């Protein structure tokens, strides 16, 4: 059994990359990683610690075009005779994995949240996290796209062979004109800690206290849909059924009522803290820890407590 793992190495090795290599290691005998771009070979070799024996890198493409990336990953899969191909379920996987599924006639399990079960099925999130489905693949080759933060990376030591690879990417018809990357922000889907706020915060000028708590914790920020709709916060922060679905270790929600469509995107969180003035807010039913109180007072207090804790534990 040979497993191919695709990782995006364009901004170093993210935790999500280590997760998929670990996942690959646990599903197959030998793990080969395929990546593109200019990542440093010494850095890529460190993936050996997570179970990769070999890293193939095609430096001719950047990975911005799904069509090219599909060709490269397909050639890598064919060259090693991969029976399982693993992605991290991010924006690249959402564009490339379905294409690869058609190209290789390989069933795609998208949004996996666990390792395959004994019967070969893999659990995925369905109904925006309101339920799980056990999916079986009917083809010989299978593709699994793993939701970030579903398993912990495990390092055992060892180093991988890094080899240049020509995946015959072919031409591209996509021209990138401009890239806007916010500095230093943690991408929401990958964040382990998230601080989120809703309409209870009254206006965009009050987000300072949300950001301060997020900074103190090292968390990403998120918001409810109306807040993004009115333009208080950027669209990419909107979580829920029609926004981003997240499963962080900790989700702190301040001034969010907990409507079913909001819960759908966050109820995979391991621990939920709710801060709301209304003791009847539906969110408390989904919470692990609840604070009935005014976010304007509780958030700064919590930020102070976190800072004190961090200072003491260092």
């Amino acid at each position, binding site marked *: 059994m040979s497993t191919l793992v695709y990782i995006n190495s364009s901004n170093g090795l993210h935790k999500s990359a280590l997760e998929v290599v670990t996942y690959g290691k646990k599903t197959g005998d030998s793990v080969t990683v395929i990546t593109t771009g200019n990542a440093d070979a010494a850095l890529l070799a460190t993936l050996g610690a997570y179970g990769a024996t070999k890293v193939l890198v095609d430096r001719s493409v950047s990975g911005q075009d799904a069509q090219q990336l599909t060709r490269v990953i397909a050639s890598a899969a064919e060259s090693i005779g991969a029976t399982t191909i693993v992605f991290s379920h991010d*924006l690249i996987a959402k564009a490339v994995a379905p294409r690869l599924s058609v190209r290789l006639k390989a069933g795609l399990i998208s949004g996996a949240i666990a390792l395959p079960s004994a019967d070969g099925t893999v659990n995925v999130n369905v109904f925006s996290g309101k339920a799980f489905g056990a999916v079986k693949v009917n083809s010989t080759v299978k593709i699994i796209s793993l939701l970030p933060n579903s398993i912990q990376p495990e390092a055992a030591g060892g180093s991988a062979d890094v080899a240049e690879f020509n995946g015959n990417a072919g031409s591209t018809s996509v021209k990138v004109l401009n890239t806007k990357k916010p500095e230093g922000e943690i991408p929401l889907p990958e964040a382990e800690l998230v601080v989120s706020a809703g309409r209870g915060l009254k206006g965009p000028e009050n987000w300072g206290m949300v950001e301060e708590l997020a900074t103190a914790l090292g968390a990403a920020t998120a918001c409810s849909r109306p807040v993004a709709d009115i333009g208080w916060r950027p669209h990419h922060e909107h979580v829920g059924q029609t926004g981003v679905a997240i499963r962080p270790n*900790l989700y702190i929600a301040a001034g969010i009522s907990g409507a079913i469509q909001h819960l759908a995107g966050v109820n995979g969180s391991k621990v939920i803290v709710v801060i709301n003035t209304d003791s009847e807010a539906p969110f408390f039913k989904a919470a692990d820890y609840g604070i009935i109180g005014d976010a304007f007072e509780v958030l700064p207090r919590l930020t102070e407590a976190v800072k004190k804790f961090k200072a003491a534990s260092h």
Partner: protein
Amino acid sequence: MKILVSISKSPDTTSKIAFTDNNTKFDENGVQYIVNPYDEWYALVRALEIKETIGGNVTIITVGNAADEAIIRKALAIGADDAVRVDADPTDAYYTAMQIADYAKANGFDLVLTGKETINYNGSQVGGMIAESLDLPFISQATKLDVNGSTLTLEREIVGGLEVVEVALPAVVSCAKGMAEQRIPNMRGIMAARTKPLQIVAPIAVDSMTTYVSYTMPNAKSACKMIDPTNMDELVELLHNEAKVI
């Protein structure tokens, strides 16, 4: 400009999610179906806006059974010109995509739009599969879409940011929030929808590549622990020692 918009049904977002037949089937009892929000609010409305500025035709396609004609009529009432229903149960994303790709191939479109994902299976699969099958470029999760002659200018979400890209037509695009604003159908649209053409086509033979074997519900949360709003040190202590998340 000939535009094909794929639309799917999805349970109303407030639907109670439950399963029957030993947890192998979604319980449709009492479930109201709506047009999948991404397909309706973004893909369809943007297609209509493009048609209104540069002219053309907007066809909607759904893979589903006769009961799904309600969502087809809704999309026609919003303004699509005509509709196609592939008369089959959409057994998986691959099966669905192959049906749509086959129709698109035979009828020739400049642009195929899908939603970013269905809110029931959340697979984000169908659009990319259509694109590969048609051997066309695929721009996924676009938040902006403009047509300039024979090229498209798009803004799309990328890992941790945004990217502005240009691509030549024909192309397949999956549509995300930001691309357009929801439109409420008016009386005239609803009346007109009744007489707009709806073509029913037989499915092509395709084997599904995946099967949903069973479903489970998440474990119920244990009772919420209430914390004194003036004692945030206690919360931090619990998050560290009890929940072990910080």
